[in-house]
């Protein structure tokens, strides 16, 4: 609020019968309709992802059946569904994928499942690393801080996408098994690894900053004077106070990682056919086959992802505002 009398707003909010920041945040959040709705949307996606096997069981199909061979009458010789709109029908709700003719509906929910699984894993890894290095650097300062700082600078100078592409085959080849199929989990692990390595810096930076600021604050000083061990101070004094930036950052990180993962699979270095994956669907959607004959197909991964990302970003904003009502909206 430009020129708005800040101090009073504070007293207004902070003094609501001594509720804990957490409760306050929760109260404000519940009051924020967009926030709640987007929270539900996001939750829905995770639910779908989690329940994908169940859903497809009820729906009676799986994302691996090659309908182009099982039901050849539905396709032409190039594998394009003969019915309009990519063969959408009461039987195949979202139609069939041009090419091998997978069932788009199940492929989509399984694809979401894969993508979210991976991104979630990366997020966790990134957050942990971020906290570890960020807080350490901020708290210890000095040489450690310098070293970690330089490391961050260095990694930030990396052309990350390029690095991903270059390192994926390498990482995958670390698990080569001569006679057996390269298991999907290997690619998954590789994806998680590369994204993690170049993913944690920004969070670490922010946490470093916060910690640095906190370190100067009286209560930390007090704790120091009272002879509490650094570990204890970090655990009891610092961590609780970095929760806010942490939570906010994380809600922004996850969607970013989802799109990143999808990007890699889109470029063909991530998850590949037949494993269903959001990004892999995009790479399918960008083939001549689809562009020429079946635009319908690309809307399913496309729209679903846009909805997911929007919801998640909105959620992020609400979380931020809930924590800190002063920030501009």
């Amino acid at each position, binding site marked *: 609020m430009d020129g*708005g009398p800040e101090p009073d707003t504070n007293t207004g909010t902070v003094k609501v019968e001594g509720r804990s920041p957490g409760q306050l945040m929760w109260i404000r959040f519940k009051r924020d309709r967009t926030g709640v709705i987007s929270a539900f949307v996001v939750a829905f996606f995770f639910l779908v992802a989690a329940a994908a096997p169940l859903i497809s069981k009820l729906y009676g199909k799986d994302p691996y059946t090659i309908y182009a061979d099982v039901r050849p009458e539905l396709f032409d010789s190039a594998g394009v569904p003969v019915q309009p709109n990519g063969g959408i029908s009461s039987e195949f709700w979202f139609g069939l994928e041009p090419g091998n003719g997978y069932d788009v509906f199940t492929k989509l929910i399984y694809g979401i499942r894969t993508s979210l699984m991976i991104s979630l894993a990366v997020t966790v890894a990134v957050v942990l690393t971020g906290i570890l290095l960020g807080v350490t650097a901020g708290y210890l300062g000095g040489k450690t801080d310098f070293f970690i700082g330089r490391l961050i600078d260095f990694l930030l100078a990396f052309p990350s996408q390029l690095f991903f592409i270059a390192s994926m085959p390498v990482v995958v080849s670390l698990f080569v098994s001569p006679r057996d199929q390269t298991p999907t989990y290997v690619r998954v692990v590789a994806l998680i690894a590369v994204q993690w390595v170049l993913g944690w810096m920004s969070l670490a930076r922010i946490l470093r900053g916060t910690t640095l600021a906190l370190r100067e604050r009286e209560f930390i000083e007090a704790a120091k004077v009272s002879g509490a061990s650094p570990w204890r101070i970090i655990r009891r004094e610092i961590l609780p106070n970095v929760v806010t930036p942490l939570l906010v950052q994380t809600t922004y990180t996850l969607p970013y990682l989802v799109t990143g993962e999808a990007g890699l699979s889109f470029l063909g270095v991530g998850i590949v056919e037949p494993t269903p994956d959001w990004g892999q669907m995009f790479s399918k959607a960008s083939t001549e086959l689809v562009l020429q004959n079946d635009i319908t197909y690309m809307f399913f991964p496309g729209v679903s992802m846009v909805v997911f990302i929007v919801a998640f970003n909105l959620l992020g904003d609400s979380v931020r505002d809930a924590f800190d009502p002063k920030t501009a909206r």
Partner: protein
Amino acid sequence: MTTLTKDAGTPAPADAGAFLSVRDLHVSFKTEDGVVRAVDGLSFDVERGKTLGIVGESGSGKSVTNLTILGLHNPQFTTVEGEILLDGQELITARESELEKVRGNKAAMIFQDPLTALSPYYTVGRQIAEPFMKHRGASKRAAWDRAVEMLAKVGIPNPKERAKDYPHQFSGGMRQRAMIAMALVCDPDLLIADEPTTALDVTVQAQILDLLKDLQQEFGSGIIFITHDLGVIADMADDIMVMYAGSAVERGTTNEVLRAPQHPYTWGLLNSMPRLDSDLGMPLNPIPGAPPSLLTPPSGCRFHPRCTFQDRVGGTRCVTERPLLAPDRASACHLTADQKRTIFLEEIKPRLA
């Protein structure tokens, strides 16, 4: 001597002598958590050449009041009722363009933290010159010279050069001087100083206060001096208004209020104020409890949750009935006049040493 207004309930017509008169001001704004009634029925006047000190804890509505006078509140979230007459001009209903003509011209403001209050992107000289160009329609050149002159007035050494500097190149005290120069560049009739010295260390504080006094002599402008520090007010203000939870609880001349305070809150303030002459054994005793939420103000006397003298009033009056602020020298409290006197003389004064 400043004439003090009649009862807030029935505001008297604006005093002819008064340059600024505020009548029954209500300011409230919406926040995430509900409507905050920041100012709740406030009335006062300021005369040219005189200084009104407004005292109170942060959140008592001091700053809001004065931002409202210049219309610096955010209309989107804020609703203002009552009337503000500046030199006969109604400000609450005035259009933005009108207000712009007033701001920095008839009425100027000095803010608490000169570091954040000055733009880091422009030279001090330019920032001082700007309002002069705007209000006096002066040329760049003239305005710049004026800026240098003002800097000299507020005692910046080698102003010609310093004018070219950026705020971050100034020391805290110099910044505040620059602020003052900026406020006075169009010699305004009203100067609102919002805790101008809190951010400064004691010695600089003194200098700044002196400077203000001198300049007041020279420009003869009325000053509203906001602070939570009674010590400062003592040697600045002619009159004092004590604010609590958005309304005035006591008012009178500086002498009256400081020598014979009548409101428990004022006592509390005096009590909690450290004194140079107090012997070391003497503990500071802050007012118990915290300022009330303006979202859900306490019933009856806003101060009753923290008031240690409720029982003297007896019954539930303090909780149910809101005490009014009597005309002239007065305080909004249910205690009887002699109760107030005796309590102060017998219980408070001794502790003030």
